[in-house]
């Protein structure tokens, strides 16, 4: 028992703790031995106990996401580890530990320990503060983890943490590396392989009856990457890029127009009740009309072949953007605007500082939908009217019985469409750093 008390006293966080409390703590300790190389706990295990090394040594390896500068360390007699057990809201292990030689450790249940500290809040606070300082100094944990230590005074960590700001860059690298480690990219590849395989087998091997006129992947890819394409369209012909360029131009024009008009309109619809009552019913009647139904009218009203296509593309985007922006404004918790008024903000200031940023997540959801439907209506428009563009390419290839070009046009649409959509998402992440950082940390 005395030996145990001595060991506890030598452990940094428990130094200067009054004897009676140390004896109470000793009362909840249990002793365990591990053979050389034995695992003590693993990353992600449930954290119930705090450990103190009494003899031997323990290898301590922190997980990648613990934001540390030093991953591996050796714990020797009197060293304490496994502090996740006394953190609030952190009930899994952040490191893996194993014994390096025959080792004796003392185990203290984290909950019991916190309970003991509560009986003597003054001492408990000191020990907890030491825990937090130690965690910070030695492991350089993200600030959020040290915050979970009950009763921990922020000011103490302030200095040691300034350098450990998790940069956006590090976060991106971290995300990519976890993504590569997860099964997701490989499942994705299997998905692609499955579709390509089915296409190849059905057309070129099994020659299914309805697939007779369908070009197979060999033909399509030979054409697409040929320097001298049979049907005159490949990645080496300027015409290919002209189709892509024209489509992109139309998308960009229509999308920015829809955003420029739709976002302000949506904001005002959500913000002002009387404005909404005036405009919204009209909006609700026009919105369900499919873009294709507008085609004849668009051609009649607008001159030339270019304007009708842009108008059709704009239309669908505009409705999606406006509606989502309006929902975004409505979704904002009333306490935010109340707080703004309390703090002396005018109605207009509240609009700028609360309504617009508060609606931002919905606005970007709207823009994601908007860019998607823009491509949809663009192709519809280009098939009916216009010259050049991917929709036009697909339609004329069908008329001219140049079937491989249809597939090339389709795959190109997929790739270009995905790229624009990813750009919108990146723009949203850039503008909403607060959200990216919040989500990266999980909900706390």
């Amino acid at each position: 028992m005395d030996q145990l008390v001595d060991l506890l006293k030598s452990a940094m966080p428990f130094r200067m703790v009054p004897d009676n409390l140390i004896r109470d703590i000793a009362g909840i300790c249990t002793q365990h031995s591990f053979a050389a190389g034995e695992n003590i706990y693993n990353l992600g295990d449930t954290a119930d106990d705090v450990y103190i090394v009494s003899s031997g040594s323990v290898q301590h390896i922190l997980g990648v996401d613990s934001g540390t500068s030093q991953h591996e360390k050796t714990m020797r007699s009197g060293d304490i580890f496994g502090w996740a057990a006394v953190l609030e809201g952190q009930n899994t292990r952040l490191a893996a530990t194993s014994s390096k030689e025959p080792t004796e450790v003392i185990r203290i249940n984290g909950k019991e320990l916190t309970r003991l500290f509560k009986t003597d809040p003054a001492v408990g606070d000191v020990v907890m503060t030491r825990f937090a300082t130690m965690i910070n100094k030695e492991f350089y944990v993200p600030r959020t983890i040290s915050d979970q230590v009950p009763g921990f005074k922020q000011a103490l960590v302030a200095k040691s943490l300034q350098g450990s700001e998790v940069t956006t860059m590090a976060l991106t690298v971290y995300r990519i590396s976890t993504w590569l480690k997860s099964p997701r990219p490989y499942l994705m590849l299997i998905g692609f392989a499955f579709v390509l395989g089915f296409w190849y087998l059905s057309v070129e091997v099994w020659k299914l009856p309805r697939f007779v006129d369908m070009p197979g992947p060999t033909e399509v890819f030979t054409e697409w990457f040929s320097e001298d394409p049979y049907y005159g369209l490949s990645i080496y012909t300027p015409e290919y890029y002209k189709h892509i360029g024209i489509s992109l131009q139309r998308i960009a024009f229509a999308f920015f127009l829809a955003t420029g008009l739709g976002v302000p309109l949506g904001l005002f619809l959500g913000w002002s009740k009387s404005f909404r009552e005036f405009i919204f019913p009209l909006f609700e009647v026009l919105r369900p009309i499919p873009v294709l139904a507008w085609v004849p009218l668009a051609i009649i009203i607008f001159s030339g072949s270019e304007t009708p296509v842009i108008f059709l593309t704009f239309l669908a985007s505009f409705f999606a953007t406006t509606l989502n922006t309006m929902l975004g404004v409505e979704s904002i918790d009333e306490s935010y605007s109340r707080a703004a008024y309390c703090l002396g903000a005018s109605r207009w200031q509240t609009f700028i500082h609360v309504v617009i940023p508060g609606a931002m997540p919905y606005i970007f959801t709207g823009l994601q939908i908007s860019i998607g439907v823009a491509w949809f209506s663009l192709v519809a428009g280009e098939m009916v009217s216009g010259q050049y563009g991917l929709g036009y390419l697909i339609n004329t290839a069908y008329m001219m019985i140049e079937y491989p070009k249809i597939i090339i046009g389709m795959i190109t649409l997929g790739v270009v469409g995905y790229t624009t959509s990813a750009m919108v998402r990146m723009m949203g992440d850039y503008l909403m750093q607060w959200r990216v950082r919040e989500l990266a940390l999980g909900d706390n």
Partner: protein
Amino acid sequence: MSAVIEENVGSLADVTSGAINIKDVVKIYDPDGAAVMAVDHCSIDIPAGEICMIVGPSGCGKTTLLNAIAGFHDITSGSIHLDGELLCGPGKPQAKPGSDRIVVFQNGALFPWKTNLDNIAFGPMMVGNQSKAEIYDKARSMMADAGLSGTENNFPGEVSSGLRRRVEIVRALMNDPKVLLFDEPYRALDSLTKSVMHEALLEIYYRNKVTIFFITHDLEEAIFLGHRLIIMSSRPCKPKKIMEVDIPHPRDYSVLTSPRFRELMNEAKDVVHEEAQKAFDAGEKEG
């Protein structure tokens, strides 16, 4: 805590503004013809600088009273004065929200899209009668005083909930309010964090004495923090019992185990339990 603070910590004599006078306030909700009386001829006098704890069962109409003071909605009759000036009353059913009375909300209302520092600087920046540098200097030093250094550039979503509450209180104090209105701000916190928050709040209060109108249904919290407890009857809401908490300030956690604390606790418990039972029997919805 410095000696200077400790000397006059208990006295409210040096606090000159922030007296709230609630007189015969009635609030009747009439959403669809079925009139519901939320507050019934409620009169409360809160002297300047007092921590006044409003205790009552959930949904008894405490928040209605707070919203009336803050200016979030109107009252049916009666009047509320702040330092003799009419906030709302005859001819002016709804008070205008302003930075002399700042609410700390139940679920917290820090703007998640602004950093902690920008949140704290928000009020003065909106009012705009100080330079930006002045405002940010003050914000930084207030954060340091409250033990929040190092979290200036974090977004509220990145720090613990206890810390967020502290940022929110500092944000309110940046505007030199006369009154802080707390709407069960610690309801969602676990008891450990709560106890730390209580001491932190008292520490902030000893430094900047403002009137505190604090709604809670946690008796321990009420007695630990308050100069006075006003126990409300269940809906319609009106004061049922007023209790002076004669435990001297400054207080710390040793107070919780003192015999006097237990006595007050028992005294309050009987009254509150009776009201809670009534509210439960009436099947009222939490509000």
